[in-house]
């Protein structure tokens, strides 16, 4: 995690605030900050999205490439997550500084997507055992304002929703097969992201837990639980992080909150993405200008 330094008195102020259910910015423990999303921001990707959550800015690009399927799963495509922490976000990421965080995020993303019911990898298969689509999902962290895991997962989901893979036709020709990739930009295959999970991070601060912790709150938190939640409330992955320990009862509590908030996120995200799609090609790209 990205560290900020706080004095003892500031930490106590934050801690008591969370006990009172009134955080530094007036949110209650289960409130998310205002989130801004835009998809199709990078033209040379198969799908892309940008998410801004307070000061956290994340750009995700999806690139589809043809490749060989894994030998143990011949009829399935693959997702490859790669996270890059830009040193623009914080000088701490300079050199190899961001690598640890990057692997953590990409590992958790691939773990929460590694569930047969949440993402249908067989739709990425072109020729069983020979050719499949591999989706390279690149997450770029441009600014840090806390809650990087949740924001990345939301951006990934939006980018996958935006992904349009060209249709491929397989032709048998005198014993050898030929693949033909359609060059019509409208003859595309969409991905079903209906039950793709979003990550919800619950930070235990004092005796309560909060969602969407700001950087300052993260500095007060000793143990956090990250869970991947689908629209139906299924938990697909779970990870505990931090030096503190968690009581089984509070883990259950946190899972309940996480499920509830996760469902909310998924539902409003899908709703917003569909709204954006209805605007069609007339939509103006906003990008990073403010």
């Amino acid at each position: 995690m990205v560290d900020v330094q706080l004095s003892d008195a500031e930490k106590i102020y934050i801690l008591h605030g969370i006990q009172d259910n009134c955080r530094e910015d007036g949110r209650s423990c289960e409130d998310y900050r205002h989130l801004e999303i835009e998809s199709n921001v990078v033209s040379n990707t198969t799908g892309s999205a940008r998410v801004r959550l307070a000061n956290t800015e994340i750009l995700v690009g999806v690139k589809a490439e043809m490749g060989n399927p894994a030998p143990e799963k011949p009829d399935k495509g693959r997702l490859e997550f790669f996270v890059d922490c830009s040193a623009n976000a914080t000088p701490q990421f300079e050199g190899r500084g961001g690598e640890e965080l990057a692997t953590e995020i990409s590992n958790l993303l691939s773990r929460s997507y590694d569930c047969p019911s949440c993402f249908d990898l067989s739709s990425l298969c072109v020729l069983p055992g020979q050719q499949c689509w591999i989706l390279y999902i690149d997450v770029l962290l441009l600014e840090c304002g806390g809650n990087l895991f949740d924001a990345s997962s939301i951006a990934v989901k939006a980018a996958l929703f935006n992904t349009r893979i060209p249709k491929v036709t397989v032709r048998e020709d005198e014993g050898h097969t030929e693949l033909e990739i359609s060059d019509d930009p409208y003859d595309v295959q969409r991905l079903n992201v209906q039950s793709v999970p979003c990550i919800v991070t619950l930070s235990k601060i004092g005796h309560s837990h909060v969602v969407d912790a700001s950087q300052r709150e993260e500095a007060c938190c000793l143990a956090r639980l990250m869970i991947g939640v689908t629209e139906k409330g299924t938990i697909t992955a779970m990870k505990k992080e931090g030096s503190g320990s968690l009581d089984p009862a509070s883990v259950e509590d946190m899972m309940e909150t996480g499920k509830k908030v996760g469902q909310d996120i998924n539902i409003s995200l899908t709703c917003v993405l569909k709204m954006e799609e209805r605007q069609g090609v007339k939509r103006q790209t906003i990008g990073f200008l403010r």
Partner: protein
Amino acid sequence: MRGEIESNMAVDIRLAGTRETTKRAVPDEIANLVTPGDVITSDTGFMRGHGTYMEDDKLHTSVAGVVERVNKLICVKPVKTRYNGEVGDVVIGRIIEVGQRRWKVETHSKLDSILMLSSVNLPGGELRRRSEEDEKMMRHYLKEGDLISAEVQSVFSDGALSLHTRSLKYGKLGQGTLLQVSPSLVKRRKTHFHHLPCGASMILGNNGYIWLCPTVSEETGTETGGYDQDLQPVTKGDRQTVARLRNCILAQAAHGMMLFDTGILYTYEASLKYPVKDIMKPEVMTEIIEITNHRQEVEGS
């Protein structure tokens, strides 16, 4: 505890396209606004000041900002900058290192500032020679991460600042919230310490750091230089006032408004009809800023 929250949108996701691009009324007087690389003048009779460079006998700007001319000297005052300290400024800083007879303080300036052991008041307001004992106790007074309010005592030749806290109004800060805004939004004024009528105190640091805390009543003595800290829980009412002020100040900063006490109070009053957390929503933000702007025009402040 959880039942009392009204669950109006726990998650608020928006499209970037639906964001209203607020057209700020740009006064005509900043006509000399420049961006890096712009040619200011090709007249060679001028002197090159801060934020400018010479190329092909022409004076170019190296920052985005406003051109200012004093006789033959041309400088560009940047819109977004790190803090350039001047003697007498009130600043807020965070201790980042305890060293030999000095603390290193982060004040959002280009170089870390320095607070000498000889320029602090020791606990109890004692004025005496600093002994070796005091030197050993330095981390006991101020340790890494602590926030202080201080005044700029002098500026070194490389631009680094030397701070002092030799007045009981300066010193270590207790419970409250720190905000960071652009240093260009805080003007140098007569007073930077404000006890607002809404029940909170505010320190507007010239370096763009703003400290908000619940007002402590006089008899308990705020003027201890901050060495005795009150770590009792703050009441929920006070907490909400501070949170509301925080969101109001950030709203003003987001709209590029100068920050001073009356303006902040106007925004605070305009925001009272909304719950605290709603002030972070862009449309509410724009509305309360418009009300504030209007009121400032009417009252001519």
